[in-house]
Structure formats: structure tokens, C-alpha cells
């Protein structure tokens, strides 16, 4: 039996409640303050604040009489490049108009361009963005003859070594491994051997230094010539099996290498330039004995070719303010912006002339070596399927200690071929 309620239910006012909710929602959504339009710049969370400053400088100078035609809001992305890409592509694939400017890792250009997620630069703007840039940095922002982003910062690896243990830096890999083995306990070489994109970078540098490339010129077919590939694999295998490699090589990234080097138990390290300010700040007694040299060659007669990194600034294809975004990207990546990123953030510039700038040279005492390495730098495979190709390479070559230089050339060719054809799982 149903019991009849003795007290009447409280009167519920749906309309009033709904209005209150709607008002709340409206307030939450229209958060943009009045004034010039805001451009969102998705870029990794740069710790020194150099990006914020560079963006603010451009925004202030953009309008007439200091009013500013736009404002820039930084949208920080994770430090890891794979995770930056993951967050961006999910938004871009859904056509997110919130993305105006993108701090693009150099390897994303073909993928983003081909998918139509970024805008190509019109000729006049492209000409300005090309002026004075290092050729390899410019190449990284170019796809199918068009410029897709303004080259902003760049980076590449150098060989870091202990001047108190080694008089003359080794010129080739074999020389370095021999030397490190003869030094015993402290001879350790720090490199990147985890199964991630960094392993692909290591392989690409070794392969290019040996005179080979992963893909043919057009980027559609597997190249991987037999002899250079075998040479590169041989060095990877020798390093991993040598007493001179770190026991944790199979799970080491750039930062593990840096930390291990800073504790003093290593003599050699292959790493990016950020290790220099880091060592000076947190391990000054190591930094005192830290020397730098060009990445070791594979063959003595052939100078090494090292993989180029860095970020270029692209304009999101779904942006509501593409013209302003183009202007902002060009401004942030101009000489003034690059000087700021270099001196404040420690990020090497893509404008060659800046390497003669006194302020920049103070920050990068190895500026000449860095510029020379960058001039010979190699690109990672330039295909919209780079991510798949990289997965295929790092999977096949990990762990380096199990590489069989003779058989794995064929294996690698097959896996990269499958990745290019989007076949199967990786």
C-alpha cells in the first residue's frame, strides 16, 4: 500500500534554477576580457620565462601607438615531445580553433602540413622568415617546397668529455670506446638507449655520419643502404656490449645521461647543449673539467652529421585570427626574439649571425662548434608518417645489446617499410 505523504513537498522552481545555472555557465565561458584578440600559443613550458617575454614584446609593439593589435597567452605543454604532440594532434584532428600559434618540434612539419593542421606561409612573409636562417633549420620547417613555420630555436648534440681525464677528444666512435675502456671504472660513455624517439635520433645521427639515410630523397621509400646501416648498427651494438657503457643504458634518456655525468663517474656524454648551464649551476666542480667537441665520426675521413632539433612556430589552420597569428609568429621568431630565447632561455638561435653576438657567445662558449655542427646537421626522416617510422626504428633496435648488425639491416628495412605503408601494429 502506498503511504500518502503528510507534508507537501517543497516547491521546486525549475525555471529559476535553470537561469542561475545558465548565468554561471555564461560567466565561465566568456572569460575573455575586452581589448585586442588573444592568440593562444601552445608551446612547451619554458622555465626561464623567455617565451613569455618574447611574446609580450611582440604583442606590445604590434599595434599603432603602443595599443597592441593582439595579445598572446602561453598554453604550456608537457616537457616530453611525444606528449606535446599527443595533446596537440588530438585537438587539431578535432579542428580546435583555440590553437593560434604552435611551438612545433622540427619533426612535426610534414605530418601537420599534410594533415592540413597548419597554414603555409605566403611568399612575402616566408621570405622574411627565411632570411639569415641556418639551412638545416629552414629545411626542418619546409615541406614540399613551402614554408610551414618560422624557424625559432634549434639544437643538436655535442660530445661532452672530462678534460682532466682525456687530453684530446676522440674523433671517431671506435676511438672513443677504446679510450673509455682503457680508462676503466670512470671511463663510462653516457648516451640515450631507452626505447623512445631519442633512440631513433641516435640511430639517425650514426647512420648519417656513416653516409646513409633512412628514406630516399622524396621521403616515400626506404633507403637504409646496406653498408652504412651495418656500420651504424655495429657501433650501437659495440657500445652496448662494451664495459664503457652505463649499465642503465637500455633505460637512459637525455636527462639520465646528464645526471649520471654530473655525479662524476663518467668521462664522455652525447647530449644537447642544455647540459652546460645545468652542470654549471648544479655541479660546478664537474663543469670546471667539462670540455666539448664535435660528435664523434663513424669514419675518420667523414665528419659526423648530427640530428637537428629545436622548435619552429607554426600557425594553426583553424585559428580565428590567422593573419595576426602569422605576424606574431614572425615577430616571436625574429632576431630580437631569438636573442631573448638564447640569452635568457639558453636555446640556440636559428639565425646564423647571432652566433657572433657577444651576449649569445657568452651563453654558448661553444658557439662556433655548435654552428659548424648545425651547418652539417641531418634531418630525421621527412615523412608525415615520421612517428610510425620512429616507432619502427626504436622497436627494432632496442635493446642495443641485442642488435645483430648483419641480420638487423634487413629486419630494419622491413619494419620501416611496413611503417611507411601504415601496415600492422607497431
Amino acid at each position: 500500500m502506498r503511504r500518502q505523504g503528510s507534508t507537501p513537498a517543497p516547491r521546486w522552481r525549475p525555471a529559476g534554477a535553470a537561469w542561475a545555472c545558465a548565468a554561471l555557465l555564461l560567466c565561465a565561458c566568456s572569460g575573455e576580457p575586452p581589448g585586442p584578440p588573444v592568440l593562444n600559443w601552445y608551446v612547451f613550458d619554458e622555465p626561464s620565462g623567455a617565451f613569455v617575454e618574447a611574446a609580450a614584446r611582440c604583442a606590445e609593439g604590434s599595434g599603432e601607438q603602443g595599443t597592441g593589435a593582439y595579445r598572446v597567452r602561453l598554453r604550456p605543454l608537457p616537457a616530453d615531445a611525444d606528449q606535446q604532440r599527443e595533446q596537440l594532434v588530438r585537438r587539431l584532428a578535432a579542428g580546435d580553433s583555440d590553437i593560434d600559434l604552435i611551438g612545433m618540434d622540427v619533426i612535426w612539419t610534414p605530418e601537420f602540413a599534410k594533415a592540413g593542421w597548419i597554414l603555409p606561409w605566403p611568399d612575402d612573409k616566408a621570405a622574411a622568415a627565411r632570411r639569415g636562417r641556418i639551412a638545416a633549420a629552414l629545411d626542418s620547417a619546409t615541406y614540399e617546397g613551402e614554408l610551414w613555420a618560422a624557424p625559432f630555436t634549434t639544437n643538436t648534440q655535442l660530445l661532452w668529455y672530462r678534460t682532466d681525464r682525456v687530453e684530446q677528444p676522440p674523433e671517431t666512435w671506435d676511438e672513443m670506446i677504446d679510450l673509455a675502456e682503457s680508462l676503466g671504472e670512470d671511463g663510462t660513455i653516457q648516451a640515450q638507449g631507452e626505447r623512445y624517439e631519442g633512440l631513433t635520433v641516435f640511430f639517425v645521427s650514426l647512420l648519417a655520419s656513416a653516409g646513409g639515410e633512412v628514406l630516399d630523397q622524396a621521403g616515400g621509400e626506404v633507403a637504409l643502404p646496406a653498408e652504412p646501416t651495418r656500420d651504424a648498427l655495429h657501433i650501437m651494438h659495440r657500445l652496448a656490449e662494451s664495459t664503457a657503457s652505463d649499465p642503465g643504458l637500455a633505460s637512459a634518456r637525455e636527462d639520465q645521461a646528464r645526471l649520471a655525468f654530473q655525479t662524476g663517474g663518467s668521462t664522455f656524454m652525447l647530449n644537447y647543449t642544455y647540459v652546460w648551464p645545468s652542470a654549471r649551476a648544479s655541479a660546478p666542480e664537474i663543469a670546471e673539467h667539462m670540455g666539448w667537441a664535435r660528435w664523434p665520426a663513424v669514419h675518420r675521413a667523414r665528419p659526423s652529421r648530427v640530428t637537428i632539433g629545436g622548435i619552429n612556430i607554426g600557425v594553426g589552420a583553424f585559428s580565428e585570427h590567422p593573419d595576426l597569428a602569422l605576424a606574431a609568429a614572425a615577430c616571436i621568431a625574429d632576431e630580437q626574439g631569438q636573442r631573448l630565447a638564447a640569452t635568457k632561455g639558453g636555446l640556440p638561435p636559428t639565425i646564423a649571425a647571432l652566433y657572433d653576438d657577444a651576449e649569445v657567445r657568452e651563453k654558448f662558449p661553444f658557439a662556433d662548434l655548435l654552428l659548424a655542427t648545425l651547418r652539417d646537421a641531418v634531418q630525421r626522416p621527412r615523412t608525415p608518417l615520421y612517428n610510425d617510422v620512429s616507432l619502427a626504428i626504436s622497436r627494432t633496435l632496442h635493446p642495443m645489446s641485442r642488435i645483430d648488425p648483419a641480420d638487423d639491416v634487413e629486419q630494419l628495412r622491413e619494419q620501416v617499410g611496413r611503417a611507411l605503408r601504415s601496415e600492422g601494429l607497431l
Partner: protein
Amino acid sequence: MSERYDPAEERLGWLLCTPAVLAMLLVTAYPILYAIWLSLFRYDLRFPDERAFVGLANYASVLTSEVWWQSLASTLVITIGSVTLELVLGMLFALVMHRVFFLRRTVRASILIPYAIITVVAALAWKFAFDPVTGFVNPWLGLELAWFGERWSAFVVIILTEVWKTTPFMALLLLAGLTLVPQDLLDAARVDGANAVQRFFRITLPLMRRALLVALLFRTLDAFRIFDTVFVQTRGAQGTETVSIVGYHALVTRLNLGLGSAVSVLIFLCVILIAVLFVKVLGAGPAAEEGR
């Protein structure tokens, strides 16, 4: 208890279920069907123009791939390893929690703490503990082992992390089962001269068969879908890749919706298979008939 058929009652029953059924259709059936639909296409978000119907080609591609079978094997190693250990440890914990008479609440609450910790945090904590440079496990054991450098040792750490984290859940479900065992029965058995081991295996265990089934089923399904611990600790290196990570790579990293959906559907089928096996094997014993 008599079961009298009452059409009005049945109609009311269906009526009461309707909102739940609708919600389930909306949030589960739709995504499942959509995933099945997507798995029949060649569809990469990077190349939306190349979308084409390919039938079962994606499934053929997955099932002929070494990566899939290897990851399935890894997943089974982790699942069987962790669930077995959890069952034994969980049962011990449940017995302790059941027997304890003082500070009952404190004991129960403290056993549950690991379960309240976010998996990623737990996985990172275990990763740091086993790190050859900064971790404390190697010095404790007097070893110099790169735990994540070998397949077997990486599995050990992953399984231990899982066990540490989810044993409390298992223990709680088993505790619920233990409370179902009537004390009279145990007392009677004791009077008849059954020792503690006999009482546990002959009376307690058969009577809590249902609770055991539920606990094992939940944990096995959970363990089979493991993602975060492996992703944080090895990223799937050293042959520790699980099926969920394979799916993640296809869907999220490569944006290959067709292939990724095929992987998801296959994982879904595996999960159903596990559930059916459990219910058939464990659910249809004599104890189940008694329970009816």
C-alpha cells in the same frame, strides 16, 4: 520462498530498470558499436581523405602481427602473476581482518591505504625504489641490477606494484565472503574434530565460493586491462607491452582509428571470454547449486 508470477510486478520491475538500461545503452553500447564500426575502415585521422571500407582487414592485420601476440602473452603473464599473488595475500589479509577483535576499524582502514593511492603515483614510487642509481632496493638486497633492463625483472617490479596496490581490494571482497560463513557450522566442525586447515578448506572455502568468484573475476578483468603501471615504469619496453598499450599506440600516438579500434574490439572480446570462463568454471560447481 515461493515465486508467484505477477505481471504487474514484472512490469514495474522493467519500468524501474529503464533509466539504467537507457543510460547503459548511451554510455556503453553506443561506443562499443561505434568502435566495431570504425574497426571495419581504413581510417587515419592524419589522412582523413583516405578513409575506406576494408572489411576485416584490420583484424587480419592485428592477428597476424607478432606485436599483438607478444603483448597478449605479456598481459597474461602480468594478469596471472598478480592475481594469483593477490588471491593468496588477500585471503591472508581477509582472515586477519575477520579475526581481529581490537582496533578492528584501524586495521581494516590501514590495509586499504595502498588502494586509495593513485596508480600512476604508486607506479612512479615503485619505479624510483627500484632505480639502479637513486633507488633503495638494490642497496637493501646487495644487488646491482638494472631492474627495468631485463624482461623478467621488469615483470617482477610491475607485478609487485600491482599486487601491492590491489591486494586490499581483493582482501575486502574476500572479507565480505568470510562474513557469510556461519559461525555455528565452524563450531560444529570443531566439535567433530576438524582442525583449522580442514575447517578452512572443507567449510570456509566452499561456502565463500561466490565471493571468491566475484573477487577473482573483478581482479582478472582489471589486471587484463592494465595500462598505467606498465606505461609509467617501462613504456612497454623489454617485452612488457600489454594489449592496452598496443591499442594506445595505434589510437593515440598513430591516430589510426581503424587499426586501434580493431585492437580495442579484440580486447573487449578477450574480456568477455575471461568472464564467461570464470562463470562457467567457477560458477557451476555444487556450491552454486546449494546457493540457489
